[in-house]
């Protein structure tokens, strides 16, 4: 088994004595495509910044490629790609000059990949960055992060400004990267459907804690909606319920930790066999935040 690219143990980060992340532990293994979900202010960007070593942890430790992230050496940085929430392009340069500038920092650069993406994403190399639309700028930012074929690609809400077609192309590219079992992607986004299509692992941040981390399939198996036909009012609360909607003869609940034992417990409590319905990631996310 390969070593994880990122290992974080009991990470805590506080700003101005105000905690943003509490005791967060996780790993990023080769081949992982991790979708990070959370409400605004949940700590997604802080988490990514800790991984990238932009800021030191108040407590705990993050290691990237075996090095403390806050003191990441150049060789390790060359294996990391990063797309920030707001692009950091130089307005005065053309897209082509910007590419050449960033390319000069890396020993390896996949010209074929870059040329293909320029073609697919319709990036005009002669266009000055300041004259580009927000979406075009974001495409260029993503291109700059992909050009050196990073082993670990970290994207902080990268697709919000892209049109649906560009988003699809971008997601295909991420899938292609992920298909190479040695590479990993950590992607935060508010577009849950994108993460649903892309990620094989999910982190859900809530109130500064990793409320869920694990395989997406496990999450889907774990959080389900159950429909119950009830003849009389429920005598007790439905166990593990995240949400409950009660009708006269019908109750619907979203429960977590679904298992045969839980099913039996609910059946005994309600006197009826629950009907189970799978949920989309968006439904799961909303249920967790109600």
């Amino acid at each position, binding site marked *: 088994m390969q070593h994880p690219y990122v290992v974080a143990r009991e990470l805590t980060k506080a*700003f*101005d004595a105000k905690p943003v992340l509490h005791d967060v532990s996780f790993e990023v293994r080769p081949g992982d495509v991790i979708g990070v979900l959370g409400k605004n202010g949940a700590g997604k960007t802080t988490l990514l*910044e800790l991984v*990238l*070593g*932009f*800021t*030191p942890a108040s407590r705990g430790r993050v290691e990237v490629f075996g090095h403390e992230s806050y003191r*990441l050496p*150049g*060789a390790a*940085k*060359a294996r*990391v*790609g*990063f797309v*920030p929430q707001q692009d*950091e392009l*130089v*307005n*005065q*340069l053309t897209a082509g*000059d910007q590419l*050449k*500038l*960033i390319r*000069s*920092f*890396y020993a390896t650069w996949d010209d074929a990949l870059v040329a293909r993406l320029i073609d697919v994403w319709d990036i005009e190399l002669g266009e*000055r960055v*300041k*004259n580009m639309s927000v979406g075009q700028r974001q495409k260029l930012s993503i291109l*700059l992060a992909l050009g050196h074929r990073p082993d670990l690609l970290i994207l902080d809400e990268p697709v919000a400004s892209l049109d649906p077609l560009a988003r699809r192309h971008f997601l295909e590219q991420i899938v292609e990267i992920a298909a190479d079992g040695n590479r990993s992607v950590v992607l935060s986004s508010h577009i849950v459907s994108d993460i649903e299509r892309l990620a094989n692992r999910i982190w859900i941040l809530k109130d500064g804690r990793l409320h869920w981390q694990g395989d997406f399939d496990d999450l889907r198996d774990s959080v389900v909606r159950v429909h119950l036909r009830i003849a009389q009012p429920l005598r007790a609360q439905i166990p593990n319920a995240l949400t409950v909607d009660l009708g006269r003869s019908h109750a619907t609940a979203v429960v977590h930790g679904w298992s045969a034992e839980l099913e039996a417990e609910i059946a005994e409590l309600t006197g009826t066999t629950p009907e189970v319905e799978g949920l989309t990631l968006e439904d799961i996310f909303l249920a967790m935040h109600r």
Partner: protein
Amino acid sequence: MRAVLRLIWTYFTATPLTRGLAALGFLCMACGMVGYLYYPPWTLGNGMRNMALWLQAVLTLAPWLGLVLLFFASSLLPAIVERLALGRTILVLPGARVALLVSAVATAALIATLTALTGVFALYYYPTAIKPENVFGRTLLVVFSDISVMYVALWIVGKTRGIWLLIGSLLIALGIFTPLGVIGRPSGVPAVAWVGIAGWLAFALLLLFGSRVKQTFGRSLGGPVRRARRALPRPAYASGAEIDLPLGTTQPWLVALGQALPIVAAALLFRQPIVWLLFLALLSAVAGAITSTAAARSRVLWLRHGWTRAELFRRVETAYWRYNGYPLGVLLLLYVAIGSYLGISTPQLAFGVPLLALGSVASLYLGLTITRGLTWFEAALGIATMGLLILTAVTIGDKAPSRATVIELELALLALTVTYRTLASARWNALDWMACRNGPATRTAG
């Protein structure tokens, strides 16, 4: 190394304008150097040998003009360095901070080395009491330090308006003239060199460790800083019309008062009328140049009021006349007061007043012509106007100024001003706010 070279290349070739300036600068330098090497020297006092006076003048000035052009060709260095240094991407680019620092130092060193070489060649061409071999190191040090101050000034000019714009422009003016006064002195490391070295050290520390400090302590320090700011008296909008808010013309007195200090300092430093007048003429142009961002700023006014584009132009024009009246008034008062104190002749005083007024008004209308960002055309007009201002100031500053020449020059400035006003009015009548984005190049031009 590849990144350093790419960065240096980018500083000089970021835009068509800087590429043109760089090419022209190198061409001027190369031609001038060839002239210094292969044409017979002109011995001061012994007249010319084998060359016409105009050719002599061109040969003498070409390398120096080339150096100034080269410096301005790299004028986007501060903006590019700032953009890269303050971003977070730099923290994951391998070796980026060191490369950025080395590229900035190397660019300044390149221009300083070329200047020092030019100085040595020039001293062979014009034999003087100063030994050429003693000049190289001293020039290198002084110009290298001086350029650091000039880059800071360019950064200030490109980033800010109002009083900081004036301070930045003042630093550029001082930066251009300072080496001339310092290099010829016999010995010792001049103070400007220490200032420059300290500046580079501070820059290096900030670049290498600044982002870490900011990331580590930024948010923690944010609270106390915010509290301290709240405790300070807040600036209040006390006067002016609504139009002044979007145009940034609410506090003309601040700019007017801000001019007073450098002018008094300049009067004490440069007692020769020619230098002092030149300085004032440049300041008058700077005060007027706030208008270069007016087009972009005026959109909100057009949306808010029922004005046509023509009416909008007239209102904006009036607002800037009102705004520029204060700095120009202070400029004229100080000119007359300090000029009388320094014993400037009456004709010089009389000719200087319209020069300052024309400098301010010409730059005001030149700024208003910039409605589609800064292009070659506006840049050429700006250089021509500045050249005419300098020429007029130099002519007036002469011990016995030719009145006819001065009047001709001032009439030319007046004609230029009227042309700018006509052009600006025509452009504002067809103003396209999609095209007049307020980019850094426009701000720097201002």
